[in-house]
């Protein structure tokens, strides 16, 4: 028995509890990305490629620093560069955000996934895709509030950042954290990361970033990848980071109430038919009907 499969708190398309004898007694984990310390060197992208053995296709320059242009099945993390002219200070600010899976406490991908065990959430908070169970329907993309999962053109499976669940399982930090040269990415228990973030936010505020704050959106139950933002009041400045992400109401309806209601409606319709047959009975044609029909057919016109 692989031990890492005994600490699953949520499993896609599964209605009974998954194996979860092992808990996260040392606390849930989190990655903290301090955007104010990021220099945009993309070492995290390279470390991700190296550890996970990913090689994206060499693309084309699309006129900005984002390279590759988007997340893909081979690029699980991506620096997104936004130029922002601050109207208050008149400064041009380069807001660089390391994009990737946010590891939501309430993951929309897992809620939407129809394949048992293709998406799991571990006790430590990591949301992981098990591609061997993935059927390639893309519902995870429909469910994700952050537009993160990508389907591979090669194998039709969905991929995204694993938060290096394989490294974390043996007590290592994710590859991007290990490589970050400025210490913009840190990793530890969620509580520790929040505390560290509070110190960073206080520091930023003392330096004139009055709206600095932590991005740990409550709409998805909090995330296990958090940002320290200089403009926490305007997260959309950071290449469209959603201000109040939550699982969309349509996905909630589709994957919530509609499932039991639809099965109930179908079962009730079938049961109504059965009970009608038992209670009222079939509508039969007898000899009298045939006689009446014969009389009418023989009637001269």
């Amino acid at each position, binding site marked *: 028995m692989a031990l890492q499969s005994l600490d699953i708190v949520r499993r896609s398309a599964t209605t009974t509890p998954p194996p979860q004898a092992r808990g996260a007694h040392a606390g849930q984990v989190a990655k903290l990305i301090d955007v104010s310390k990021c220099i945009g060197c993309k070492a995290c992208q390279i470390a991700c490629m190296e550890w996970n053995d990913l090689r994206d296709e060499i693309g084309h320059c699309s006129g900005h620093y984002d390279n590759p242009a988007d997340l893909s099945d081979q690029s699980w993390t991506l620096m997104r560069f936004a130029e922002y002219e601050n109207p208050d200070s008149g400064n041009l600010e380069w807001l660089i955000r390391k994009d990737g899976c946010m590891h939501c406490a309430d993951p929309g991908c897992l809620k939407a996934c129809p394949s048992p065990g293709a998406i799991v959430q571990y006790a430590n908070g990591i949301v992981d895709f098990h591609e061997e169970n993935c059927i390639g329907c893309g519902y995870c993309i429909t469910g994700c509030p952050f537009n993160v999962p990508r389907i591979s053109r090669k194998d*039709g499976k969905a991929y995204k950042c694993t938060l290096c669940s394989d490294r974390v399982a043996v007590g290592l930090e994710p590859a991007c954290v290990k490589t970050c040269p400025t210490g913009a990415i840190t990793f530890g228990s969620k509580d520790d990361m929040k505390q560290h973030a509070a110190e960073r936010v206080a520091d930023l505020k003392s330096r004139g970033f009055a709206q600095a704050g932590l991005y740990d959106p409550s709409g998805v139950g909090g995330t296990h990848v958090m940002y320290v933002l200089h403009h926490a009041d305007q997260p959309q400045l950071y290449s469209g980071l959603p201000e109040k992400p939550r699982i969309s109401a349509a996905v909630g309806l589709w994957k919530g109430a509609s499932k039991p209601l639809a099965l109930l409606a179908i079962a009730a319709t079938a049961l109504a038919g059965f009970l009608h047959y038992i209670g009222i009975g079939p509508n039969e044609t007898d000899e009298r009907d*045939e*006689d009446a029909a014969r009389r009418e057919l023989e009637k001269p*016109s």
Partner: protein
Amino acid sequence: MTEPREIVRYAPRTRVNHWLVALGFVLAALSGLALFHPALSWLSGLFGGGPWTRILHPFIGLFMAAAFLLLAFKVGRYNRMQPSDWTWLRRAGDVVANREENLPEVGRYNAGQKLLFFVIVACLLVLVLSGLVIWREYFSAAFPIGAIRLAAVLHAIAATVLICAIVVHVYAAIWVKGSLRAMTRGTVTPGWAWKHHRAWFREVAEGERK
């Protein structure tokens, strides 16, 4: 006494067409339910596993819709609502209780059958359009995420309505004895036509006398 002569209700082509639609429906419903509810995901085994179910489902759906389109060209014109159909619907209690003597005379199709026709048309329209939007392999990339989410909900709702409607359709064939053979062998007895579709029976009788 001689055996009553049988009346032809469906030509072979129509029967084959109907059963192709039925086959498409059953396969689309089973594969769709497998993708819809975890309690039914075992149904994907019928199609060769999850990925095959995902691959096949949209093609099966398109097959059903195309087959139904052909059928609709054939039977659509008999399904226009007449004033007497609304009376028939208002007396649904008599319909359910088998008191046909209280109902207005029915032509080739009764109001319930016409309603079913329109429900199928509406559901298939929604299913095909929303299905294209959520067909990740070929089309989803062309649509904004909001449209994909809405399409997923509409697809589930339309499928539920359609499945319930077909359950009613199947039960009606079990309930009204002598109906099933119209779609299997193509014929009904004159007594059946006289009892359930008297106006149509008289049309047919008129035609035979000429």
